[in-house]
């Protein structure tokens, strides 16, 4: 990366101003008298900045499921301040009562449905503390960093006036008398000289407030300063996670003395590792975790945002002492987080947990749960920039069959178009795209074409012409059409903030409009940060204007998700809402999970990038996005066959599994390597297909309750402190622990196995008691994958050419029995591609093994989806040799054949044969 292309905090004027704001006492105060009950769950208070008498309104909302919302806006801004639309779901409120305490000038808010939770507002200075069972959890503005730059008129230079105007004492009555913009203005002018006296520099005239230049680009900032800052402390926490996307560790690092984490969607060429610099996506959601509690905090903002994380040892005990709660205990750790956004209002959601799954549920209630991916999208995808023509597509497709490697979807990058005009085809190379898609679809396979938001400026191009006629492009300050440089050359950018533009975009996806497309063709939205090659920081100028009058600065981080959302809408429309869409996006934001998958962009074929895929995807998963992946093999450069093999082994256990490569790289189809490597890659892909029933169940659970399929160890073992920093291994669901190999020639991997229920190597069945750190043999054809004692994992062992051909195939259940003799699991089944599951067309089985009986029972007896799939085999790990095994179905009992391996204590039950959708039990005697 050329770091010089992107800003540091000290090159971003508002970040610099916010970071320099360090008063000894917060100037913001409120008073009990202003407390107003808006409704049963909503109270309001007035807040004043005592330095300039600016008035603000605080709103406190109690939401269902242990969630609180704090909002602070200017009382009478001279113009509306931006509030993020389309992001927060309709959530239920919960009752809250307020109890003022006049004695100490505070107000205690009790959440009605959950008496454990209290919020306490201290009035002077303003501070908000949130308690769970009287234990402080969050503290807001306890570091005095709350700072809202009020909107103001641009000062006109008045050299004489300033000098001649006598100093006037502040008149408290004046404020009440003043109403409307003119008076505001007057007051401001009067205050200016005053403030000049108070401070060395005029706070209204700091560098970069009204104009800012970075490299060759000047941002005109017509609205002037409007940034906001707030400190939120996680009390008694040493670990915080989230705020993707950064190429860094999962556990957030202290930024004291270095750059803050930056959230500003950017197209970063050849990004570097171990960096807090911004990447393609931004989710201002943070999770705090300690051994007894997990909490979440959402900073709802779409503008450029910087986040300082202070978790230095010095902090230990500072707030703990303040609260007095922890008196006598050891110094209590805390993480102080400083949020700084260029514009908008303070709008913060606090989720009180208490366990990781609770936080994910609370967060996805607010922001939406994951879309339900079609089955094929959860499999293996084959992509490169570019499969060149129809013959190439045919040859690659045939190569997979020849080498008996399954894959479900083949991708076409930008070169498939007519001169980077999306929704068109290079008709020389793709003369019959419908036939091409049908040929793949005949085997159950799909295709994806890339469709980016930059539109080639060309009046002969129907998309451009139509959008231009309708005035759908983003405008410059002067109202002319904004043009930027991207793949097609001169490009215009759709103004996706407007609903009519999104609807129009969606209408482009029906096959009658998108010529050459079929219902088996899906979409990849790339470059939607948006990428503008000749723009500041390779993106759009902040002062250009979107339809509703907002500047790009206000909405920047939303642009990508709006494109993905509109594309999803288009795919839904073309099947009259019957077929599930699939849209991959590079840019992402709060709620992206509702629309589709994302990937970590243009990574590099280096071991470090393979390793980094785990923490990056874990962070993304903790922020609600269930379906995410990294380009297998690395986008830039050529991986050696060992690295590529290891990459496939790792990515087979990551949610979105796609090989992709830059146009300058050598071809990488698995059969182009020596048979040894081809076989390893094939085995990794087949492992993914075997586990599809498990993955699909996890995606359903993500869809239902927001749990990420790929999750950190601490998510499953929240009390085990030694897992809190672990991001070289991860869980897939509750059952599988995966530790990829990310170094060459790694024959042995040291793996930490948490919990007390033991682990079974999924390949060798070897049992490892836990908690323990063990050495696991990892020759080139194997990585450490272990199934946790006490879990049940469903697989389909018959590997087909693609997932569609597996629909009727039988299941195998792997039951890893805990030392207590129990195991649990779930299995979700549906048709894999329609929305029938929303109308109870599915089977969701609870699987339970206890007292030597394995029981499968429908979690929802009302739901049913008729399927031929049957139970082929059950493998019990960690059991004694039985004498007899009997199955009970529909009241009928019949014996089953079995075999037993005493060295590994593995019992294989042969061919129960029961239809998987039925309720049944198998008893071991």
């Amino acid at each position, binding site marked *: 990366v050329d770091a010089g292309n992107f800003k540091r905090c000290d090159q971003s004027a508002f970040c610099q101003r916010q970071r320099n704001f360090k008063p000894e006492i917060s100037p913001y105060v409120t008073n009990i008298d202003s407390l107003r009950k808006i409704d049963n769950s909503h109270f309001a208070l007035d807040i004043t900045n005592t330095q300039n008498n600016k008035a603000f309104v605080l709103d406190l909302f109690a939401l269902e499921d242990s969630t609180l919302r704090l909002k602070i806006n200017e009382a009478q801004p001279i113009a509306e301040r931006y509030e993020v639309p389309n992001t927060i779901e309709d959530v239920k409120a919960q009752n809250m009562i307020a109890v003022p305490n006049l004695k100490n000038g505070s107000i205690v808010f009790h959440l009605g449905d959950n008496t454990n939770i209290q919020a306490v507002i201290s009035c002077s200075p303003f501070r908000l503390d949130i308690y769970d069972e009287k234990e402080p959890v969050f503290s807001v503005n306890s570091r005095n960093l709350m700072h809202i730059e009020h909107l103001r008129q641009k000062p006109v230079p008045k050299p004489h006036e300033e000098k001649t105007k006598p100093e006037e004492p502040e008149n408290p009555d004046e404020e009440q008398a003043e109403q409307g913009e003119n008076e505001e203005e007057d007051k401001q002018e009067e205050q200016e000289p005053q403030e000049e006296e108070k401070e060395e520099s005029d706070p209204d005239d700091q560098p970069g407030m009204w104009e800012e230049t970075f490299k060759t680009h000047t941002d005109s900032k017509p609205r002037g300063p409007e940034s906001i800052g707030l400190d939120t402390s996680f009390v008694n926490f040493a670990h915080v996670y989230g705020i993707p996307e950064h190429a860094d560790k999962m556990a957030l690092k202290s930024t004291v003395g270095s750059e803050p984490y930056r959230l500003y969607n950017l197209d970063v060429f050849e990004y570097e590792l171990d960096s807090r610099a911004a990447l393609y996506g931004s989710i201002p959601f943070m999770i705090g975790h300690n051994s007894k509690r997990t909490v979440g905090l959402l900073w709802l903002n779409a503008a450029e945002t910087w986040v300082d994380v202070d978790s230095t040892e010095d902090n230990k005990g500072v707030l703990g002492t303040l609260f007095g709660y922890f008196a006598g205990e050891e110094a209590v750790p805390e993480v102080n987080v400083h949020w700084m956004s260029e514009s908008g209002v303070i709008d913060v959601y606090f989720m009180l947990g208490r366990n990781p799954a609770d936080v994910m549920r609370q967060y996805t209630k607010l922001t939406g749960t994951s879309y339900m991916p079609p089955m094929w999208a959860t499999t293996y995808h084959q992509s490169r920039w570019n499969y*060149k023509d129809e013959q190439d597509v045919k040859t690659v497709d045939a190569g997979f069959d020849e080498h008996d490697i399954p894959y479900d979807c083949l991708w076409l990058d930008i070169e498939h178009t007519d001169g980077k005009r999306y929704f068109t085809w290079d008709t020389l190379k793709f003369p019959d795209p419908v036939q091409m898609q049908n040929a793949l679809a005949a085997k159950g396979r799909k295709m994806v074409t890339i469709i980016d938001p930059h539109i080639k400026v060309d009046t002969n191009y129907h998309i451009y012409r139509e959008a231009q006629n309708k005035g759908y492009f983003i405008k410059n300050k002067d109202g002319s059409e904004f043009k930027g440089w991207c793949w097609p050359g001169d490009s215009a950018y759709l103004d996706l903030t407007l609903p009519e533009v999104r609807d129009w975009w969606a209408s482009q996806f029906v096959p009658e409009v998108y010529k050459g497309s079929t219902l088996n063709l899906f979409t990849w939205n790339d470059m939607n940060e948006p990428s503008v090659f000749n723009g500041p920081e390779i993106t759009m100028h902040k002062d250009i204007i979107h339809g509703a009058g907002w500047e790009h600065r206000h909405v920047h981080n939303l642009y990508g998700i709006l494109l993905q959302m509109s594309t999803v809408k288009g795919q839904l429309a073309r099947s009259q809402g019957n077929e599930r869409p699939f849209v991959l996006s590079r840019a992402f934001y709060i709620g992206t999970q509702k629309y589709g998958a994302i990937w970590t962009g243009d990574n590099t074929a280096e071991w470090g990038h393979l390793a980094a895929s785990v923490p990056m995807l874990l962070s993304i998963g903790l922020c609600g996005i269930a379906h995410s992946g990294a380009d297998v093999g690395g986008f830039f450069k050529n991986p050696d066959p060992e690295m590529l093999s290891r990459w496939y082994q790792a990515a087979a256990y990551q949610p979105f599994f796609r090989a992709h490569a830059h146009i300058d790289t050598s071809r990488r189809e698995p059969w182009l390597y020596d048979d040894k490597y081809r076989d390893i890659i094939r085995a990794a892909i087949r492992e993914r297909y075997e586990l599809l029933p498990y993955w699909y169940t996890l995606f359903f659970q993500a869809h239902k309750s927001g749990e990420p399929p790929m999750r950190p160890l601490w998510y499953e073992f929240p009390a085990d402190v030694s897992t809190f920093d672990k991001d070289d291994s991860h869980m897939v669901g509750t059952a599988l622990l995966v530790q990829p190999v990310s170094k060459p020639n790694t024959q042995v991997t040291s793996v930490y196995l948490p919990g007390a229920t033991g682990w079974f190597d999924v390949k060798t069945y070897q049992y490892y008691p836990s908690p323990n750190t063990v050495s696991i043999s990892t020759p080139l054809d194997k990585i450490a994958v272990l199934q946790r004692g006490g879990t049940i994992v469903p697989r389909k062992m018959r590997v087909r050419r693609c997932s569609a051909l597996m629909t009727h195939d039988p299941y195998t259940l792997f039951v890893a029995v805990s030392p207590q003799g129990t195991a649990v699991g779930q299995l979700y089944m549906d048709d894999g591609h329609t929305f029938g599951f929303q109308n109870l067309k599915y089977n969701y089985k609870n699987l339970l093994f206890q007292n030597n009986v394995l029981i499968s029972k429908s979690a929802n007896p009302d739901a049913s989806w008729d399927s031929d799939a049957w139970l*082929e085999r059950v493998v019990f790990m960690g059991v004694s040799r039985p004498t007899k095994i009997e199955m009970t179905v529909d009241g009928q009992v019949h014996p089953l054949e079995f075999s037993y391996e005493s060295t590994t204590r593995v019992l294989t039950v042969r061919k129960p044969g029961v239809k998987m959708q039925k309720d049944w039990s198998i008893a071991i005697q």
Partner: protein
Amino acid sequence: SQMVQVDRPRGVSLTKKVLYDPAKEFTCFDGSQTIQFQFVNDDYCDCNDGSDEPGTSACPNGSFHCTNAGYRPQNIPSSRVNDGICDCCDGTDEWKTPTACANTCMELRRAALEENKKKMEESSKGFALRQEYAKTGQAKKLERQEKVKELQQELAQIQLLEDTLKTEKEAIEIQETAAIDEHKRIAEEKQQKIAHEENLRKGAEAFSEMDVDKDGSLTIPELLSHPELDPDTSDGIFTEEEALTILQAGSVDMAVFMDTVWGAINETFRTNIPPPMEEQETPAEDQIQDGSEQEREADRELLEEPEEEDQDQDEEDEDSDEEYDDEHEYDEDGEYREPPVLRKETDTSNSGEPYDEITQNLVNQANEARSKFQEAQTKKKNLENEVESLNKALELDFGPDEGYQALQFQCFELLTMEYKYKLCPYDKATQSPKNGGSETVLGRWGSWSGPPENIYAKMMYENGITCWNGPARSTEVVIRCGMEHKLLSVDEPSRCAYKYEFATPCACTQVDPNALPRDEL
């Protein structure tokens, strides 16, 4: 088609039928297990090698045999059994839904027979051509080998000649050098004498000029009228004391002056008499001009001829490099002109003294010896080059029967939408824009690069022009049998790694009729 129904488990070939005996228990092919026969094809995988489920999809590593009556029998992976896709032309892989697949074996058979007939014709025609190419190639090889032998004999002779001429040349050169040295010495002596006399003349002139009163003695005041003689010019004053140090006496006569004074001042002395303008300046200038022009002329003459020769030679070298054209070089062989010879007389031209007759004679003789020697050297070099290029051609691998020799010195083109692609076997692969523009080398001849069992299946051209931000271009040429040499297709599967498909009779083999589906059932 229903006539023969052999009773054997589904998916088992006739040859393996014997391994599946319903009367006995079944033992996995790998011997790992023995199971009840009813477990064979019961849609559950018991054997690790998949042998118990030849007719189902139960084993991940099993295979299913389709008879495909009328067409080629086929083994497909078990994973393709009952997956909803018709893989066998007899449709037997989708036995769960027997109506799903139509039997297409007869159709395929007809098509295959037709295709095979065509292929057969092509192959046999191609093979006939190949044999002709092979004959030519073998003859060419022999011819080249003979030529090398011949040239090597010639080389041995010319080596002897060269040695003789060298000895002769060196002998005469010793005499030549001695004569020229003597000539130089005499000339130098003469020069010195002339200079000495000139000095004396100038001294006398100076004395008489300075002896203003013409009394035959030069005095200090007289000397002072020549300020340029001031030994210390820094003070700007020429004092009597200073003048005295020059004369070393109050006055000196002509003889003393010449003996003791003139030698010290002849460099600094300047005459006060203005020279007559026309007479002195013009001739001097002319002389310089004439001299330099003559010199230049001489240089030109000396340089021009050799330059031309150099060029000729370069061109020929290039030609021979590029085309290995032995005939061409042979024709030109005798025509090489004399290489440049530095003529000795020009060496001494500055002294202006022509050689005496004897010396000139020796120089002439030496020149002739040198020229003869160089002529022999050149001839040897040319022969060596010729042998080298012949050997290079002989080292090339023209295939087991020398047939590919036919492709040498030929180029084959293919036009695509954008580019003209060229393959010049044993030389290079190139690409140029269709509508003109410079040629990009996609690779230079490297080697045959097919798999070990048939290395002649592919050619590799390497080290082409390096891609921007990428590797050097390379081209793999896949060779197949065709009735004529033809570049069939060009592809660039990875950036800068090209793939040509090239047909040639040289790759045709005799057709094995057994490879075709038999007519009998």
